[in-house]
């Protein structure tokens, strides 16, 4: 099956999932205690004003009709307007999405460039000192609270050494990149613990397989065996785990964006929850869901490129 038709089929399969999510979001939002009219108009609104507002937003329409209108707007990329910012939700999201995507890329980058070599080394030097050090790290790495790690890094490299900006997203691309380094490392330090442990164990397992011994019997250099046989194969399960983490990272970005004061989706979401900005929450959740679905699709495609035994279907 060719790659393009696979992608199209997967995208089509996403549609029903997406609809189910819209229903859930729609219902859940209406379960949150609070009255949008009151929130919008404030405590001193008169009964008449509230009634008029309710009529306007269709508060008394049957639920199915409200859902239908919600869907119709959605299809026009209209996610409603923010109460807090008085701006279309879609604009708010599109403004902040690049920051969160940038953060994700930064996290993945640091996880890969630091975690992969360390995991590989721990596996190659198993039961020697580097392995023990790396294993101890991977035991504790995940349990260190991220806001604390982030603050420590900020204090050290932002405030003391002034290597990186503190709470400053900046205006130019280089400034943005600088602003993404520390948060990227902070988040990566946690995920790396899992990645390193997984890669280490895979390297140990793969090193004992017959195909590695056979490769040696062919007279290949150890460097080539490491790269083409051990690393290539050890990476396969790690890729899956990394992609699961990337998906869950979207949730984690709420903490990191708050600590580092990044104007990303996570920060937007937390502010909106605090101020009961319903339409923003609603839009944010939908964007998260779409992103997770797309990340899964990309992972499956990458995996099929890495492992020829896996076919796309």
């Amino acid at each position, binding site marked *: 099956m060719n790659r393009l038709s696979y992608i199209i089929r997967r995208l089509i399969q996403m549609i029903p999932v997406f609809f189910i999510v819209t229903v859930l979001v729609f219902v859940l939002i209406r379960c949150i205690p609070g009255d949008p009219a009151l929130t919008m108009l404030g405590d001193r609104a008169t009964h008449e004003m509230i009634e008029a507002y309710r009529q306007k937003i269709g508060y008394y329409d049957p639920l199915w009709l409200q859902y239908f209108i919600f869907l119709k707007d959605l299809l026009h990329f209209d996610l409603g307007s923010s109460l807090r910012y008085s701006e279309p939700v879609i604009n708010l999201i599109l403004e902040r999405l690049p920051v969160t995507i940038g953060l994700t890329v930064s996290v993945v980058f640091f996880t890969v460039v630091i975690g992969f070599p360390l995991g590989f080394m721990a596996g190659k030097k198993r039961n020697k000192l580097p392995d023990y050090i790396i294993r101890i790290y991977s035991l504790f790495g995940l349990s260190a609270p991220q806001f604390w790690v982030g603050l420590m890094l900020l204090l050290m490299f932002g405030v003391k050494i002034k290597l990186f900006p503190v709470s400053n997203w900046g205006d130019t691309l280089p400034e943005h990149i600088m602003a993404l380094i520390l948060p990227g490392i902070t988040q990566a330090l946690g995920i790396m613990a899992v990645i390193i442990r997984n890669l280490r164990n895979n390297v140990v397992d793969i090193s004992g397989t017959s195909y590695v*011994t056979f490769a040696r*019997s*062919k*007279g*290949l250099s150890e460097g*080539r065996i490491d790269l*083409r046989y051990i690393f290539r*194969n050890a990476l396969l399960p790690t890729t899956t785990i990394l992609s699961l983490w990337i998906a869950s990272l979207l949730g984690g970005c709420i903490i990191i964006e708050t600590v580092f004061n990044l104007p990303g989706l996570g920060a937007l979401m937390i502010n909106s929850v605090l101020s009961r900005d319903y339409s923003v929450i609603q839009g944010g959740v939908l964007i998260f869901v779409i992103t997770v679905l797309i990340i899964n699709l990309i992972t499956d495609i990458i995996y099929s490129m*890495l492992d*020829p035994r896996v076919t796309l279907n």
Partner: protein
Amino acid sequence: MENNILEVKNLKMHYVSKYETVKAINDISFSVKKGETFGLVGESGCGKSSVCKTLLQLLPPNAKFMGGSIKYKGKELIGLSNKELQKIRGREISMSFQELMTALNPVTKVKEQIYEQFIGLKMTKQEKYAKAVNLLKLVGIPSPEQRLEEYVHQFSGGMRQRIMIAIALAAQPSMLLADEPTTALDVTIQDQIIKLINSLKETLGMSIILVTHDLGVVSQMCDSIAVMYAGSIVETGDTLTIFSKPRHPYTEGLIRSMPKDDGSKDRLESIEGAPPNLNNLPKGCSFAERCKYATEICINQMPPLKEVGENHYSKCFHTDLLINSKGLIEL
């Protein structure tokens, strides 16, 4: 010995763990003549694969080399550096593995796994391709151009065996260690592989160590054989001699328990019992427990490898009792 390509002397190797020591190779000596097929025969677990891997020094970390000498074309292989060994492996001596389904890299194309054997040779892309196609043809893989682009999981067991042999031959070694090349294949494919290896010997003049537990295969392929039991060679000699006049009780038993020629499953007889545990070998003859000729001395002392005929040795105290033993072939 000018015409010996390989001479192995007093080879010993153990697998050591915290809990036990598996004495996998116990003082083994044999030699392989240039251009011959030498059979290493014995029940599963007697140490055949361990011998092959020791020859190429491919042992896992828990293996402990306990001494001995491996001379290839007069040159000692024990003590060579990893770099020096890399020049021997694949280029002088190559090995096809018993583990058909797992011995090839699952994530790279067959083509790449063959091309790897051309590293260091000055060959153009076209030459590599042509040579790879020829190799696949040589080992009898149909439509080689297409199959070079495929991955291992797209091949059947028999085809994987051929690919493994093609890879093993790619750097034109003088010697091939074929570890159970016919095991786990069905009978018609077995015959094809036997014919293939026999033809390699004839057309390429290779020396081959054939490892198998199947005496039928040995009789069709080998010029001389060594019979292994519990990590030792118990009898060695020309194939014809051993099949006609076995001088070790274990060999005699093996030959008598071969399936009949007419293909019926009945055996004349079979050897009762099981081989001893390699982590707890008896101090005397390791076959004593199953041997119908065993006496007091067999239990208390280790029998020496005795010359019992021209180029024919047996590790037994009572070789005389077998002087009239008849094998399958009547001379």
